[in-house]
């Protein structure tokens, strides 16, 4: 299977462990990623907060480049990138912005391709095929599946899963032989891009998420977003210090667990590069 791939800035920067993980995992599942040539940043939170038109134009350029490269399906592993691409498709279908955006981005724009988040990639591969690839069922994993904000919101843009009680990640983990917990914070925000500019916000929100996962018996939290991983893993020591509580919660990308179940090593998946690596018993 071939799919178009828009990595986004985080995966080529400090979240390069996520890219290592998904590349190793998808290679093992015979998925070839075709990276969009000359892709640019989608503008992220900064663009939609400060300049509405720019927040559509930047992802529109990427959409046009993916169309030019002939990608019918485009995988964006960062939920913000993915949502912004879908927002452009919605805007050109509904608001008639196609001509204006095409002029701004200096490229034709159809907006007919399919945008996939990470979970949808596994759904496209097929959970049956995934199950057949499992060599080492994850019997010791009891996971809290954490969706965060933009995998399911806004629902009229992303049209993915149930926005209050999503279950699609649990379905993947069940196939891997892992257990999952019911908990309260699976769609609550981790503070996203406030990591540097409003650290307190992130440390307080991350604390609620991590302690709720622990209180419901999870021994790890699973994410499908680079920013969620930064705030829950890289910032976890700071969360512990601010709230004076040891958490020691391991944070996996969904691809980490799929990879481990297929027999890949922690080193192949980049799990050894996470900040919290000591698994709870």
């Amino acid at each position, binding site marked *: 299977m071939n799919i178009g791939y828009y990595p986004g*800035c*985080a995966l*080529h*920067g*400090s*979240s*390069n*462990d996520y890219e290592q993980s998904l590349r190793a995992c998808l290679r093992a599942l015979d998925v070839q990623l075709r990276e969009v040539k*000359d*892709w*640019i*940043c989608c*503008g*992220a*939170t*900064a*663009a*939609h*907060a*400060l*300049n*509405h*038109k*720019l*927040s559509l*134009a*930047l992802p529109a*350029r990427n959409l046009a480049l993916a169309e030019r490269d002939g990608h019918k399906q485009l995988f964006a592993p960062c939920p913000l990138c993915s949502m912004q691409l879908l927002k452009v498709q919605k805007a050109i279908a509904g*608001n008639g912005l196609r001509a204006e955006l095409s*002029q*701004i*981005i*200096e490229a034709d724009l159809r907006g007919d391709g399919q945008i996939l988040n990470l979970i949808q990639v596994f759904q496209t591969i097929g959970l049956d095929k995934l199950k057949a690839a499992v060599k080492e069922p994850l019997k010791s994993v009891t996971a809290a599946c954490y969706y965060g*904000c*933009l995998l399911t*919101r*806004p*629902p009229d843009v992303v049209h993915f899963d149930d*926005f209050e009680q999503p279950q699609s990640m649990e379905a993947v983990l069940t196939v891997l032989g892992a257990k999952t917990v019911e908990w309260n914070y699976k*769609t*609550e*925000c981790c*503070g*996203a*891009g*406030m990591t*540097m*500019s*409003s*650290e307190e*916000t992130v440390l307080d*929100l991350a604390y609620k998420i991590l302690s709720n996962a622990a209180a419901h018996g999870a021994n790890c939290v699973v994410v499908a977003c680079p920013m969620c991983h930064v705030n829950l893993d*890289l910032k976890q020591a700071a969360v512990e210090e601010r709230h004076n509580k040891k958490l020691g919660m391991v944070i996996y990308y969904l691809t980490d667990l799929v990879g481990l179940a297929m027999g890949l090593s922690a080193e192949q998946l980049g799990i050894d*590069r*996470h*900040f919290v690596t000591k698994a709870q018993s």
Partner: protein
Amino acid sequence: MNVHGDPAAQPNAEFYPIESLAHTQLDNCYQCGKCTAGCPVAARMDLAPNQLIRTLQLGQTPKALRSQAIWECVSCQTCSTRCPKEVDCAGVMDALREISLAEGMVAPSQQPIVAFQQAFLENVRRNGRLAELELIAQFKTAVFFRTGRPAFLFQDAGLAPQMGKRKKLRFLPGKASDRKVVERIFAKCSNPSEKRAGK
């Protein structure tokens, strides 16, 4: 029905095109409070989400534009998702931020957040893709000059070696090959009032 406390406040719509920027109808809000109930950062805000919408309904737009709340918002989309009247509160937050910045009405306490976002966009404008280390340097310098807080320069400095050890820092990040296009896209999207303000 006119829910505006001050009928003369209506011309605000021309000066502050919030509804057209956010594609939403502010008068639809009947103050159920569901947005605020689900907001993860409402406790940090000077005006909670439902209060912000009410402030706008009453025509007190400058008060909303000067609020801390619009910058505390983490854009999680919960308010918009749960609104029973389809008011896109998160979209309103974006519109308020855009206008607040363009009109020079940003709450002083929120300068670090604004500085981060401005540094982010400037970085993308020049590189096409985000160069993280450069962003951090620019952001810290900007906050230092705006707030005069030297401590801010060193916050998180201890993380750098740990990130380096984990190969999470890239000193020479990949750049987009056609950066001129990116600069032209930015130029075509530049906010007219920002031009007025000479930014």
